[in-house]
């Protein structure tokens, strides 16, 4: 190919190339995307398979092409097929074995294989604005394809039609800001270099992209290399006196280096680089300089040092690189990021206004982001600046996989920070992100869920910056290891609250005094995690707990650590495995007095942290616990703790729910005289009147409550307490308020006083107490929590023909336990999402219908869920004869009105979170009465915490934030780690269930207990995480 000597020749070439492309577009095009990720997933094999098949079948109307990566990283290998009949079809997750079928059905017969295609209407595609990534479907090794799409036209334009100052003006008008992270206005930087009085200047492209989690530059280097070359040439012209440019590519990108080298060679061949470009006399050439594995070389002065063949130590500024003495080899230099350069040709060609047509006022244009981490759709996305974070993560990204909760998104790499759920509405632009304490950086977005520990994340980033610190200046070199020391201390459980102040002080000092950007921004992860997740740090320090179960030194196994009661789960599972059921029962019972209950109704946070989930499924810890408890009941095995020497103090507990009863148990074991006052005719709280019998049989509950009474606890039913003072007058020295949250929240819509409208808790209570209650034929339940599901399933069993549940958000937002929702669906309950009732319609004082309105989700609220808004004009009516309201519960603390005890929002009792002490001496509170509706196991844990505080109080000691427990007589726990066989993939053992017809018509318990063989089999799946690290 002879070099192009004029703009006319370029134009002719473009027309020829366009014609070629048009001819190609008449055929069926198969584009195989070959980025690094694609190749590592086998894309080359897919390419070969297509070539083979097409050749073998002599399909002359099919052309197989190489293309670059289009950013659908999580589902590589990706292939785009464009044919005149079906238009564009994108296949994902292909392998060579799928190719013959695609060739046969799609290429030959014209019917795409739907099960392997992507839906082009899904938000991933629809919400993106492709500008920078617009050439990714071309073959990067063919310069003529780039030219056909208008490549090098911009260069031709500036060389023949624009003066250098006009070029800079156009860039200034566009509002382009540096895409490397700092966001400095590009035109201004170029202006500085242009006005520096020197006859030799340089343009440099920073392709070091060291931020872990960011690889958008790599995609452009591998996919659209000519845009960088053209951009740099335009920049060289605009600045003037620039004859040479460098691209500093990190060594970890071999394919990018190869592709770019090829592109540069081709550009030279076509006369678009070198002397006398396009016959205009303009001279410019580019060299690639590979990095050698130093993150700090992404910092501009360190990068220049590296090109000059030195250690990458940043330089003191001034002089800035744009000035004399500060740039490459001392000459004025502009260093810009890959994406910045890549934007230039399009700005020149399509105009500054086009570029500025998207974005916010100060941040114009689009930006590519690498959406990675705990998100369903990982990959490269391009959106206008100003797009809300939540939209990128949840709408485009599909949200968090595995049913886990979003915790934070890390933006900007190690120089950036974490952004929590409450800021998901933040538009992603330079100013907004900086205001939150982070930086945009190159645009890496790493999504983290509840399994990431923020202390650990801060430590991780600091370890990175410590390793990459060049060592030149003291605050960075000596300061970062000091911060790590403190964080390690905290992760080991040895931290103090003062450490957090020291950490902050250090962080602020380092960010102010460090020489370069690496040091200045290195404390950002610490500062942002401290700002938004301070309670997590405090949990490590005060409670010696890592809520995400990551900091290994604080726990033996994640399940035990997550259990609010701290039950030794691997302990009893290993005993079950060996058939030592009685000992397993003892091990559980001495820590959790209600194993039979918990084994049935606990929401099992332990299972959500079970490491076995990485192999197949988490252990069925609930079922195992239930098996042991039922076995003990069957066999008459009892565990009666040794009650200590009887003490004279008396403790009053208000409420015989799980919190009250577990506090009673612990205090009774200590020897105190405990009286539990219960207003209802039955003990158990929500266990008795909230949870239906098919989940928790009465008999089981009664048995476990009896064991509390056997310790000498006096439970007085039908005895409400109206006045705390009377208890003290009667001679009690301490009071524990555990009244739960039984008062239903009203919806506040017209018609609530009609006959046939119930509050869910009232409804469940009446049924559980055996009272007669009228349930109509068509029942509506409003709400999405456990009481809503319980009420719906009970209504069914009480004879309703149809039960409809109305929830204002989506299924995935429902707070109810997942298995309960599934069970309700199985039993035929109809779910209606994104809708709420606005009016209950009645006739003759009875319910006849419900007027509802549909909801749409808009911005995020502080919990990270989208806020529903009614859609105007979408009202509709349903025929209903019974309405059960289950939108929330509050505690009934009216009896505390004159006691002087402070109440919080919604009537909950205000207490110190850790000691559970109210502001009145001797009065403690815990459970749902303090937290609002929560779970059984957390109430039990609260009861134990209260008992520990009451004990200290009665002994005259200062209260402690930690729960004190006596040591137990040791049980010899097996210490055999699992065998190779036991680690192999194996599904959970499923317990048997009663038939569906029995389920819908009776209150019989649905799930059977394991048999001993089933229990031992399931127990053998335990990985014994508690044995590691010993």
């Amino acid at each position: 190919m002879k070099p192009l000597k004029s703009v006319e020749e370029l134009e002719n070439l473009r027309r020829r190339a366009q014609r070629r492309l048009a001819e190609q577009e008449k055929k069926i095009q198969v584009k195989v995307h070959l980025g690094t990720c694609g190749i590592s997933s086998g894309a080359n094999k897919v390419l070969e398979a297509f070539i083979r098949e097409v050749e073998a079948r002599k399909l002359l109307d099919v052309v197989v092409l190489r293309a670059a990566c289009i950013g659908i990283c999580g589902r590589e290998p990706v292939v785009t097929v464009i044919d005149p009949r079906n238009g564009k079809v994108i296949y994902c997750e292909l392998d060579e074995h799928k190719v013959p079928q695609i060739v046969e059905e799609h290429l030959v017969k014209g019917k795409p294989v739907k099960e392997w295609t992507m839906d082009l209407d899904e938000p991933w595609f629809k919400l993106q604005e492709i500008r920078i990534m617009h050439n990714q479907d071309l073959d990067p090794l063919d310069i003529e394809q780039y030219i056909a799409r208008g490549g090098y036209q911009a260069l031709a334009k500036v060389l023949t039609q624009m003066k250098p100052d006009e070029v800079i003006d156009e860039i200034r008008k566009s509002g382009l800001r540096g895409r490397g992270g700092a966001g400095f206005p590009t035109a201004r930087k170029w202006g500085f270099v242009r006005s520096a009085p020197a006859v030799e200047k340089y343009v440099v492209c920073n392709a070091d992209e060291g931020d872990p989690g960011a690889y958008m530059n790599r995609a452009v280097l591998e996919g659209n290399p000519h845009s960088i070359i053209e951009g740099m040439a335009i920049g060289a012209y605009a600045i003037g006196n620039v004859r040479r440019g460098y691209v500093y590519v990190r060594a970890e990108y071999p394919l990018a280096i190869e592709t770019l080298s090829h592109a540069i060679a081709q550009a030279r061949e076509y006369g678009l680089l070198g002397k006398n470009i396009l016959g205009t006399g303009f001279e410019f050439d580019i060299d690639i300089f590979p990095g050698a594995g130093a993150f700090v070389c992404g910092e501009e002065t360190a990068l220049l040092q590296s090109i000059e063949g030195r250690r990458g130590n940043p330089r003191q500024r001034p002089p800035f690189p744009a000035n004399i003495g500060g740039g490459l080899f001392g000459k004025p230099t502009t260093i810009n990021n890959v994406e910045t350069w890549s934007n230039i040709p399009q700005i020149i060609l399509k105009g500054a206004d086009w570029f500025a047509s998207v974005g916010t006022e100060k941040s114009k244009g689009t930006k590519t982001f690498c959406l990675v981490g705990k998100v369903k759709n990982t990959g490269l996305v391009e959106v206008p600046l100003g797009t809300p974070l939540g939209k990128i993560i949840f709408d485009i990204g599909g949200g968090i996989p595995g049913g886990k909760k979003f915790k934070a998104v890390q933006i900007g790499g190690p120089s950036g920070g974490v952004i929590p759920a409450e800021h998901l509405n933040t538009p992603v632009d330079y100013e907004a992100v900086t205001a939150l304490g982070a930086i945009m950086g190159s645009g890496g977005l790493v999504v983290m869920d509840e399994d990431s520990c923020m202390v650990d994340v801060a430590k991780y980033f600091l370890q990175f910056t410590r390793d990459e610190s060049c060592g030149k200046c003291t605050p960075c070199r000596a300061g970062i290891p000091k911060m790590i020391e403190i964080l390690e201390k905290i992760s080991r459980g040895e931290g103090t609250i003062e450490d957090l102040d020291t950490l902050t002080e250090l962080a602020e000092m380092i960010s102010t005094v460090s020489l370069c950007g690496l040091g200045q921004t290195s404390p950002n992860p610490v500062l942002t995690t401290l700002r938004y997740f301070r309670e997590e740090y405090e949990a490590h320090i005060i409670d010696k707990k890592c809520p995400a179960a990551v900091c290994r030194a604080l726990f033996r196994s994640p399940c035990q650590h997550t259990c609010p009661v701290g039950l030794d789960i691997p302990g009893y599972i290993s005993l079950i495995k060996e058939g030592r059921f009685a000992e397993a029962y003892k091990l559980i019972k001495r820590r959790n007095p209600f194993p039979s209950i918990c084994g049935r109704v606990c929401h099992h946070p332990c299972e959500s942290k079970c490491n076995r989930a990485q192999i197949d499924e988490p252990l069925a810890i609930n079922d195992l616990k239930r098996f042991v408890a039922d076995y003990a009941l069957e066999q008459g095995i009892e565990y009666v703790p040794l009650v200590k020497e009887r003490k004279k103090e008396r403790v009053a507990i208000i409420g015989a729910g799980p919190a009250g009863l577990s506090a009673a148990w612990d205090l009774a074991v200590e020897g105190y005289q405990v009286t539990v006052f219960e207003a209802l005719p039955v003990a158990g709280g929500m266990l008795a009147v909230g949870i239906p019998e098919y989940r928790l049989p009465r008999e089981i509950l009664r048995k476990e409550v009896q064991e509390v009474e056997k310790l000498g606890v006096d439970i007085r039913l039908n005895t409400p307490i109206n006045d705390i003072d009377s208890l003290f007058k009667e001679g009690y020295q301490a009071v524990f308020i555990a009244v739960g949250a039984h008062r239903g929240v009203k919806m506040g819509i017209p018609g609530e006083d009609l006959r046939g409208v119930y509050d869910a808790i009232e409804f469940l209570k009446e049924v559980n107490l055996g009272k007669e209650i009228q349930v109509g034929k068509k029942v509506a339940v409003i709400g999405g929590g456990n009481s809503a599901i319980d009420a719906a399933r009970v209504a069914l069993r009480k004879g309703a023909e149809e039960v409809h549940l109305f929830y204002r958000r989506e299924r995935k937002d429902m707070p109810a336990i997942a298995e309960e929702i599934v069970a309700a669906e199985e039993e035929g309950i109809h779910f209606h999402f994104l809708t709420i009732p606005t009016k209950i319609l009645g006739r003759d004082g009875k319910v006849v219908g419900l007027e509802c309105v549909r909801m749409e989700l808009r911005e995020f609220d502080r919990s990270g869920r989208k806020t529903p808004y009614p859609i105007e004009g979408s009202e509709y009516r349903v025929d209903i004869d019974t309405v059960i309201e289950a939108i929330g519960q509050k505690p009934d603390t009216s009896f505390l009105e004159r006691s002087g005890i402070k109440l919080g929002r919604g009537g909950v009792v205000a207490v110190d979170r850790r000691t559970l002490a109210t502001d009145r001496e001797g009065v403690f509170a815990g459970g749902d009465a303090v937290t609002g509706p929560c779970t059984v196991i957390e109430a039990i844990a609260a009861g134990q915490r209260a008992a520990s505080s009451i004990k200290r109080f009665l002994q005259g000691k200062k209260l402690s934030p930690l729960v004190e427990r006596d040591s137990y007589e040791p049980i010899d726990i097996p210490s055999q780690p699992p065998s190779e066989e036991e680690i192999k993939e194996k599904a959970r053992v499923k317990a048997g269930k009663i038939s569906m017809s029995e389920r819908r018509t009776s209150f019989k318990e649905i799930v059977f207990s394991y048999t001993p063989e089933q229990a031992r089999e399931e127990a053998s799946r335990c990985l014994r995480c508690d044995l590691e690290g010993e």
Partner: protein
Amino acid sequence: MFCCPETIRDECPAFKYRNLPCWQIEGTYCKLLDYGQRGDSTDICWVCQVYKRYGNGEPIEIKHFGKGFNRPEGAISYAGRIFKEIQEVIDRTRGQAGAIIPVLQHAQRLIGYLPAPVIKTISRDLKISLSEVYGIISFYHFFSTVPKGKYVIQVCMGTSCYVKGGQRLLDAFKKGWGLEPGMTTADGKFSLETVRCLGCCGLSPVMAIGSDVHRKVKASELRDILTSYP
């Protein structure tokens, strides 16, 4: 013993006469690398890991002569070839400022690491002081002054891979192979390293072996992956 590339091992008498202490053999590859030497200079042995580990402090002197290969006259040994190539690279880039880093990269790619004699040669020819050259080598992660294994395993510890369980891979290597980052297996086959982001974050956790990039790697798959490398 040392994990030199196979082509070197084919020629080096230290490999052929494994029962003898290599520092006592004339003409071993390491000694030949020293620019212009005949193979009897033991300078390198004093700082060599092998001697330090097995030498027990005994005085180093050549005891076994003539064990070098008989090479036909005029033929260049593998070591010589390497040297020639490095020399060419140096000549090509000598005028350029900043040539040192590409030259070091080239040498590292050829040999697998940077032995002291090579460093000395580069320093001498590019007229950069040895301390400055060592300063550059020790600054950049990519340069190594110790040989690596036949295959270098790079476990990515970038943010995405870390969040998606990259640490578990390192734990598995420690548990199953006794390997920690920076170490090489006893048979010289695999070296383990951590790398900060290979840029394939969409497919975390990522592990590279040589130029192969493995994605969504599970700890249970490691054994199969490693055995697939001959």
